């Protein structure tokens, strides 16, 4: 699908930090060499398209390297009668993996946990007061799990919400980082994630410079967290710009 676009996919590689961290990793005695040949602080090219699912209110398809995700948004729809009246809207998120998404069939990793994380990441960005008494459903399907799945799902979901016309405070961009020995590696692939000593995922609203979600796993020292946050936030703002340009392209394509 990526071959059909006319221009090369945009990338959201952050600006390099001033220090050059070149210390040996625990594996080969030299720098961690990335399987796809990227630099340590280089992100995968991002391919984003809206309007992937015709029957949904809004939808988006994202391909970041091998991670392929499709998200569709339905709503605002009437809430179930069993639910209490609420004067702000409700958000319902669901993330599921296809059975062929992982190399071993049916090895879906914590999809229940991902649904609640997606919910938390998006609820800060949606203006819930604009659709009282109704529910917006966000359904994400991971077609292929290529590492750094949750950030891709979150970014794609926010694009789908924008495509559906739901009022948002800002686009939500998400990037994750892995710590492999002494190296900080941005936008890890599945192989790097399985060896990681620690991981950091940030979801932020770039224009407002607000972090809506952050999770850190593994042992980190404070300067390392500083550095990782800087890199991730920089990458998030660039990803935000790419998402906006994707939305503009979709609109200008329909106007022609």
């Amino acid at each position, binding site marked *: 699908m990526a071959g059909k676009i006319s221009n090369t996919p945009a990338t959201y590689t952050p600006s390099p930090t001033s220090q050059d961290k070149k210390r040996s990793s625990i594996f080969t005695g030299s720098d961690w060499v990335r399987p796809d040949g990227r630099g340590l602080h280089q992100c995968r090219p991002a391919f984003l398209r809206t309007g992937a699912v015709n029957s949904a209110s809004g939808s988006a398809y994202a391909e970041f390297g091998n991670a392929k995700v499709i998200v569709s948004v339905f709503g605002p729809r009437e809430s179930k009668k069993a639910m209490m009246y609420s004067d702000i809207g409700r958000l319902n998120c669901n993330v599921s993996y296809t059975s062929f998404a992982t190399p071993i069939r049916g090895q879906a990793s914590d999809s229940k946990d991902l649904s609640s994380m997606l919910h*938390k990441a998006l609820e800060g960005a949606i203006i819930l007061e604009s659709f009282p008494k109704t529910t917006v459903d966000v359904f994400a399907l991971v077609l292929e799990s290529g590492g750094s799945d949750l950030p891709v799902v979150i970014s794609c979901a926010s694009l789908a919400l924008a495509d559906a016309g739901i009022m948002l405070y800002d686009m939500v961009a998400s990037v994750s980082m892995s*710590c492999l020995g002494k190296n900080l590696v941005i936008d890890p692939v599945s192989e790097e994630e*399985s060896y990681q000593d620690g991981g950091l995922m940030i979801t932020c609203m770039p224009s*407002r410079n607000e972090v809506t979600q*952050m999770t850190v796993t593994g042992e980190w020292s404070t300067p390392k*967290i500083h550095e990782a946050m800087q890199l991730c936030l920089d990458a998030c703002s660039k990803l935000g710009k790419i998402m906006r340009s994707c939305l503009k392209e979709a609109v200008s394509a329909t106007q022609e």
Partner: protein
Amino acid sequence: MVGLSLGEKNFIKGGIAQDIRTDGRKRLTYRPIFVETGVIPQASGSARVKMGATDVIASVKAELGKPNASHPDKGKVSIYVDCSPTAEPTFEGRGGEELSMELSTALQRCLLGGKSGAGAGINLSSLSIVEGKVCWDIYIDGLVVSSDGNLLDALGAAIKAALSNTAVPKVQVAANASLDEQPEVDVSDEEFLQFDTTGVPVIITLTKVGKHYIVDATAEEESQMSSAVSISVNRQGRICGLTKRGGAGLDPSIILDMISVAKHVSEQLINKLDSEIAAAEACEEE
């Protein structure tokens, strides 16, 4: 929890802004912590922690199992939290499931470290018996009996106490086992190994109300929060896990500030917990 009136909400927020909370504590003071160990005789280790009206029980069970194919030299730890309906009527049936999942994932993140096992609070390699064939499976179960805010910190403390109370039986492996057979393992009833819990981190939840952060929020204070960050810090002052909860966005500089506040508070909390756990163990032996 009964709903709060506008006057009560303003009282809570105003008090926090002036460093006096509704129960008289300062912003960075914990409620008195009571620790009791060995509360569940059938488990390998257990503990009960009370922080004010929040009451949680953690139990640790060690069973023999087969290690993962991807990590043959490591044991397995699984953490699960159950929110009992005795705490809140809404927890009955499926109601407490979302909160249970959130707490379980946050605890796993804080205690188990990265996928390669680095930075884990529990040393997984010490749980291996025969590489690739037999290892210890540790099941850590948390139970929320009564909920008055700050569940994550209480569960973290309870797990730390339960692990220091855990006695894993010594194991004799039959020497004549061939390579592809399942080796015979003799579990001793008499001799036990104590778990080394010096590396287990504590979890500090900082709740942001207005412009200030408080530690150890009660349920009322949590209802007024804009967001909360739970940070897990170990004895060496390194961050072992971080989860942001709550919907509102936070400026990145605030998160970094919260990390330094958490490190400062963690020193006192670790010392307090260690002395309480030691006192509880001494009590139990009598």
